[in-house]
């Protein structure tokens, strides 16, 4: 097994104040403000994208809302801007470090995934660093899916870019991938709803030490 992952974003200088020192035993820092804002803005853009997609695609919603030009413009721009928070986040060292962690699969991730497939939820069969294998898989999948959606979306937006058969194909991919993303996003949100401490991590930036040791035993904050 590879050595435990370390968090490159940790800043050892800046002596903590008394209160923080006390809390430090109980709370550990998980995300910097920059990382939380990347998540927040991405989530908002994704939300707008999904809502407008519903108003464009589902007949009941489309008939209720109408205003096609406005809805199309909002959908196009929220979709096009979707990768921007992540790209802007690259300016943050902590965010880059987390991306590196997300992008690297180790042998313990295979153990985690195998246990997940067997629905084995015992902590000892779910070894994970700062991010578990499920989070890594989700991050890789959604990043690729968003780029595919942007590419096929641009083909439909700028009808002069490509011949008609490409647009028909792009529509096909865009529609089916949209449905898949909807399901996967519902899973992502459902899992967050079931895990208050994970949500607290993204909301406040810190998590309880007890949670970190149980859910991410290989993480050394």
């Amino acid at each position, binding site marked *: 097994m590879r050595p435990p992952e370390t968090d490159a974003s940790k800043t050892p200088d800046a002596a903590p104040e008394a209160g923080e020192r006390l809390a430090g035993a109980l709370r550990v820092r998980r995300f910097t403000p920059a990382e939380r804002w990347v998540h927040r803005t991405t989530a908002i853009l994704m939300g707008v994208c999904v809502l407008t997609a519903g108003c464009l695609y589902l007949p009941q919603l489309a008939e209720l809302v*109408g205003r*096609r030009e406005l809805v199309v413009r909002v959908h196009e721009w929220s979709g096009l801007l979707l990768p921007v928070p992540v790209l802007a986040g690259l300016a943050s060292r902590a965010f880059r470090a987390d991306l590196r962690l997300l992008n690297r699969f180790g042998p313990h991730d295979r153990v985690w995934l195998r246990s997940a497939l067997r629905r084995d939820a015992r902590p000892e069969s779910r070894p994970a660093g700062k991010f578990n294998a499920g989070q890594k898989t989700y991050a890789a999948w959604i990043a*690729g899916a968003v780029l595919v959606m942007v590419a096929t979306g641009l083909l439909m937006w700028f009808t002069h*870019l490509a011949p008609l058969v490409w647009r028909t194909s792009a529509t096909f991919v865009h529609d089916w991938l949209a449905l898949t993303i909807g399901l996967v996003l519902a899973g992502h949100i459902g899992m967050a709803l079931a895990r208050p401490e994970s949500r607290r991590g993204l909301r406040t930036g810190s998590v309880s030490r007890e949670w970190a040791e149980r859910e991410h035993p290989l993480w050394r904050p």
Partner: protein
Amino acid sequence: MLGMLGLGALGVATAPTLQRGLESFLGSAADKDPTGLTGLLPNGGGFRYYSVTSSVPHKDEDSYRLKIDGLVDHPGTYTLADLRALPQTRMVRDVQCVTGWRVPDTPFEGVRLSRLLDAAGVRPSAGAVRFTCFDGAYSESLTLDQARRADVLVALRMQDKDINHAHGGPVRLYVAPMYFYKSAKWLSGITVTSDVRPGYWEERGYDVDAWVGRSNGRDDETT
């Protein structure tokens, strides 16, 4: 992530084949589906509801009127019954949206636009026809030559049913050889003009001469 990108490109490349297979599979599944859930799945073989306004008034047998005016000798108004009394033409073609979706082999039925134009007596100074809609916002236009084509209908029926409100009923334009944005829904006015005035989407970037495959992109096989 790279895997997803590869899958996406592969999806676009193999879409024509995949789509045909899925359409026939979903088509047969939908026939046996009591829940109606298959209706929510993406299917290239379905129409999508487009409206550029927030709400569209409903017109029926009594309230519907089609006005013909402009550079004609006999301006006039047709009721739904008037239009039904005229000879009807039925055509079966693919409906093709400029953004890519298509509905294969869709029957349309209605009065040839050329018949209405002849009845109104188009003046020699005329060069184009402008269409307006009772949604209050949409408009379209054709050159006079395009408007006189035999495959341009003032359509009353689609898929062998009276055109319903969501599909632009009771009367919509059907311009078979062009992208579907030319086939204005909720048609209420035909004005003969001297020059072509760009329609709603054309002022927003789409081509005025919207031949399928020969506009809004590169050359393709026409439908």
